[in-house]
């Protein structure tokens, strides 16, 4: 006995044995104190007790201890040492006393796990004994084998590699008897170790399919359904099609029919002739069956596997609609929607018929139903109805709970953004939809909305005016600043308004919005974007202002002077400029003309008071941008002051102009989306020897290339502090930046094109009332042309151009790796056994068979379909001979294992199939070159079904 007491202190005493608590006592003690702490104490006490008792030499004490331990580990998650439980369990397996044996088997099947697998071989002999016939009574014996099969099918045994090897043969007689238990266990064993179990168990298991006992055939259908489930490859099960077909037409068990349908749904795509064959029986079941489960399975089979059979699909859709209309049963409604979701796009119009019901389901109390309805609706979306559907969905957002509201938003965003806004025709609509989505109460999709706002801006030129309008509405709303989900959206809106500032109607308002007090609620990264946007806006305003000075020359200048004279003292206005204290310039006058002197002054003052304090901010991102902005403002003021002192009237605008022009160049170049392959298209400059000095960077570069970038944020780098900054430094900085852009402009380009290409786009700022900013726009447009030169669009096209870089290239470069299928051990083993056994059947064919087998193995490891075609095509002789031998062998097999009763009908089928087989084979061989997928297994399929 294994229970040699390790120490006398823990050895079970007589008292322990006599007054051992039963499982019921244990349960009662656990229930006495239902609190967590009380239970923990009771469990700990029970465990220490069990530790003693389980060492008892006496089987009864041990079995009760084992029972208690199993209970605790199963339902109270008591941590049990792997061997503490496994040893006594395996020991008691051998007990002649049935209750003890049952407890041991239960303990073993529940609690064994891979860590204790080293002990499982100890049980092998006992399992073998219990599985083989003994002198005990039939009922007793059946019960014993049931226990053993139970353990054999348990998950622990599935992980033990040698159990199936040793016990597979013991299963065979049970399979021959057609015991459902043995069939289920055999399925588990085959799934666990295909290579060892398939040669022994596959054929007896297949024979069970044809068994006259409905319980056996049902269990066998279930077993094959389980074995053919994805991710396993269903191809090796094609030869079973005739038996499964028999079952489909003759069985009256709904369970069997469901399983058979499931197998056929997996086989039909592999063998085109199968679908035509099964469509009639499936339709009959569909119309005839009263069981909902079977009806649903028929619907699923038709919709997934028989999409080419129109009548059947219509029938199935009709049934699915009945399911959807089942008001009293949410389960049927859910499954009906699920079934409709299986339909391909070809039947989108059919689904559309029940759109009302589906839309109604969006408001269902059931999350599942809502999700499925949403999924279905998203499946219906095309470019014609996307506006309706998105509008309808957004109106649903307000009525939904937060989680589902965001599911809807996410679905709309994903659908509209799919494949670079493939379905969006009207971008003005889409941009305002994005803004509306951001403003919905429960929106938590800020990241994606923000990304798309910027992305649309970069890609769709025509959408920019609307984009800027939408950004304005988002930015001026102080309420949005409190919602942390919207920060990415606000960040995007700020960036958009800064980048496309020339489309803004009212820059003063924009600056006010960007500098409103509540922006202090924003996180650092977003604040930095805000400040930078202000920088862009003020630069642009200055350029327009200076441009006007230049245009109307003295007129503005006079105005400038008159303005100064209007003030009581001329210097006061300059003082105001310098000190920035006088902020009370009437907002109404500012509003009238955003590019007037007052407006500029007002903005500068506003910037200085609000951004000024931020130069001491301890966040570098904010600090740096604040310094940039304040530095620029200081420069402007210095020039102003210089003017004042030198009184060189004509000099002032020119100095200012120079500065503003310099700044303008910093921001003039338009940013565009970057192709993932851009880096590869850059020609290597002369004199740069990449192999020598950059070879170590190869890894980094390729890494960067594979991450698709959809948008860029480009900040000018000015590292000068406000104090030391001067105009020269700025111009150097900016010119080197533009130099950089010029040189690396290729990054943003797809193909080089001449600049004088006619611009197909309507003027981006046509809608703007002001025409004073033309010079700036010209500048921008020219550079923009560079960016967009790669694509041309016709003027008649209603949908605006969406810049879409070479995604096809990218996809095609990804494809090969995605196409490589993985090797499936089960199908490999099945293939081996089916082909291998044939090699032995006819010794004269052995050489060619081995040749074939080796070849198939090779191709299966390569898994390249084209190679398969080549190889098979080059060995036509070996192929056909192996097929003949296989067919003979298969027939022999059937002959030795005929169905006992009720076999008349199937046998007739078979004999007729045999005669028809010869012609079928030729046909099949001709087809072989076009069906590489089914070839390796095709030899064994019987043609009478097909």
């Amino acid at each position, binding site marked *: 006995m294994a229970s040699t007491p390790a120490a006398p202190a823990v050895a079970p005493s*007589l008292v322990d044995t006599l007054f051992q608590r039963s499982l*019921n006592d244990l349960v009662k003690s656990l*229930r006495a104190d239902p609190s967590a702490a009380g239970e923990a104490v009771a469990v700990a006490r029970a465990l220490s007790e069990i530790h003693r008792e389980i060492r008892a030499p006496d089987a009864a004490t041990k079995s009760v201890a084992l029972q208690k331990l199993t209970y605790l580990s*199963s*339902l109270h*998650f008591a941590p049990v040492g792997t061997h503490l439980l496994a040893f006594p369990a395996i020991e008691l397996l051998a007990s002649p006393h049935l209750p003890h044996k049952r407890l041991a088997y239960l303990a073993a099947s529940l609690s064994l796990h891979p860590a204790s697998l080293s002990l499982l071989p100890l049980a092998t002999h006992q399992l073998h004994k219990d599985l083989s016939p003994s002198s005990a009574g039939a009922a007793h014996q059946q019960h014993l084998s049931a226990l053993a099969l*139970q353990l054999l099918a348990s998950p622990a045994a*599935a992980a033990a590699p040698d159990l199936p090897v040793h016990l597979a043969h013991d299963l065979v007689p049970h399979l021959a008897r057609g015991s459902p238990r043995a069939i289920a266990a055999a399925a588990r064993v085959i799934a666990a170790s295909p290579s060892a179990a398939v040669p022994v168990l596959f054929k007896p298991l297949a024979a069970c399919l044809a068994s006259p006992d409905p319980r056996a055939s049902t269990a066998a259908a279930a077993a094959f359904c389980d074995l053919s489930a994805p991710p396993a490859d269903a191809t090796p099960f094609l030869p079973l099609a005739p038996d499964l077909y028999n079952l489909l037409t003759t069985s009256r068990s709904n369970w069997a029919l469901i399983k058979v349908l*499931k197998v056929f749904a997996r086989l039909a795509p592999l063998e085109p002739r199968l679908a035509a064959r099964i469509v009639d029986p499936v339709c009959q079941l569909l119309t005839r069956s009263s069981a909902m489960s079977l009806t*649903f399975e028929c619907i699923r089979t038709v919709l997934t596997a028989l999409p080419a059979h129109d009548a059947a699909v219509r029938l199935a859709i009709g049934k699915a609609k009945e399911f959807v209309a089942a008001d009293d049963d949410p389960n049927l409604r859910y499954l009906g929607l699920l079934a409709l979701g299986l339909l391909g796009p070809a039947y989108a119009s059919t689904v559309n018929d029940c759109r009302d019901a589906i839309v109604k389901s969006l408001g269902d109390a059931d999350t599942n139903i809502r999700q499925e309805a949403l999924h279905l609706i998203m499946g219906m979306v095309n470019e014609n109805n996307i506006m309706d559907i998105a509008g309808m969905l957004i109106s649903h957002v307000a009525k939904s709970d937060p989680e589902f509201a965001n599911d809807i938003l996410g679905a709309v965003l994903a659908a509209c953004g799919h494949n670079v806004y493939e379905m969006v025709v009207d971008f003005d609509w889409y941009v305002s939809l994005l803004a509306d989505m951001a403003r919905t109460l429960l929106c938590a999709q800020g990241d994606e909305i923000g990304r798309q706002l910027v992305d649309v801006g970069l890609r769709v030129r025509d959408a920019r005016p609307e984009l800027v309008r939408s950004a304005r509405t988002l930015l001026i709303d102080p309420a949005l600043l409190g919602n942390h989900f919207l920060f990415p959206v606000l960040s995007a809106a700020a960036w958009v308004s800064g980048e496309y500032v020339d489309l803004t109607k009212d820059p003063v308002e924009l600056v006010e919005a960007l500098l409103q007090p509540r922006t202090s609620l924003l996180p650092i990264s977003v604040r930095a974007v805000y400040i930078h946007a202000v920088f862009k806006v003020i630069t642009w305003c200055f350029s327009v202002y200076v441009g006007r000075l230049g245009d109307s020359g003295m007129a503005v200048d006079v105005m400038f002077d008159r303005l100064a004279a209007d003030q009581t003292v001329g210097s006061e206005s300059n003082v105001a400029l310098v000190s920035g204290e006088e902020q009370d310039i009437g907002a109404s006058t500012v509003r009238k003309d955003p590019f007037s002197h007052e407006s500029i002054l007002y903005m500068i003052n506003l910037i200085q008071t609000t951004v000024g304090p931020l130069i001491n901010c301890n966040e570098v991102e904010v600090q740096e941008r604040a310094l940039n902005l304040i530095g620029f403002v200081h420069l402007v003021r210095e020039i102003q002051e210089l003017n004042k002192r030198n009184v060189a009237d004509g000099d002032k605008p020119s100095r200012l102009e120079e500065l503003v022009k310099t700044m303008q160049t910093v921001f003039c170049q338009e940013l565009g989306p970057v192709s993932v392959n851009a880096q590869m298209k850059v020609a290597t400059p002369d004199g740069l020897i990449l192999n020598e000095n950059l070879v170590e960077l190869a890894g980094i570069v390729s890494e960067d290339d594979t991450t698709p970038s959809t948008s860029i944020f480009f900040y000018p780098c000015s590292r000068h502090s406000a104090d030391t900054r001067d105009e020269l430094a700025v111009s150097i900085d900016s010119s080197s930046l533009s130099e950089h852009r010029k040189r690396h402009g290729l990054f943003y380009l797809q193909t080089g094109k001449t600049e004088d290409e006619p611009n197909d786009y309507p003027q981006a700022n046509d809608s703007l009332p002001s025409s004073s900013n033309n010079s700036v726009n010209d500048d921008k447009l020219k550079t923009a042309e560079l960016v967009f030169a790669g694509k041309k669009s016709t003027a008649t096209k209603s949908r605006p151009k969406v810049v879409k870089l070479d995604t096809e290239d990218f996809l095609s470069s990804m494809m090969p790796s995605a196409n490589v299928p993985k090797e499936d051990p089960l199908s490999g083993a099945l293939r081996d056994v089916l082909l291998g056994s044939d090699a032995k059947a006819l010794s004269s064919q052995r050489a060619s068979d081995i040749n074939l087998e080796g070849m198939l193995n090779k191709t299966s490891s390569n898994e390249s379909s084209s190679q398969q075609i080549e190889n098979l095509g080059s060995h036509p002789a070996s192929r056909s001979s192996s097929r003949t031998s296989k067919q003979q062998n298969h027939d022999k097999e059937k002959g030795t294992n005929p169905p006992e009763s009720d076999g008349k009908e199937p046998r007739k089928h078979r004999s007729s199939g045999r005669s028809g087989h010869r012609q079928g084979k030729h046909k099949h061989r001709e087809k072989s070159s076009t069906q590489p997928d089914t070839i390796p297994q095709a030899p064994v399929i019987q043609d009478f079904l097909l």
Partner: protein
Amino acid sequence: MIQAVMVISTQAKPRLLKFYNFQAPEKHQDLVRSVFQLLSASPDSVSNFVKVDTIFGPGTKMVYKHLATLYFVFVFDSSENELAMLDLIQVFVEILDRCFKNVCELDIVFNFNKLHTILDEMILGGQVIETSSEQVVKSVEEIERLEKQSSTTSFIPKSITERFTR
């Protein structure tokens, strides 16, 4: 195949756990907890199916029935039919009702072994082997008869009688 059968009380206490795919014992508690969260989150009179890909792996679904103080939960994959699983729960409950004569939670609490016996008569290795409640009840009764027959030994364990006869 069926991946797991669970009976969980409305107090989140597991009453029966059986996994047909290997799940590490230390994970059982988490599995029960996450399943119970799903159960308690779903109101009555909604569909009984829940996708549990995140808990039991891709393609798995769970069907449950809420009866009195217990949830009956079956977890299954794409090889099982949803409505058939719902029926199977019904069959299971019916069998319990017949075996325990008006089953209640206490019957299930105090009959750990019998519960497993019943379940094992229905499902083996994740495969349904018997769907007729009469047949299962008959088998369970037969097993009890065999066990009684086998336990002809005395109530006092052998080791004790040995000690006394020494």
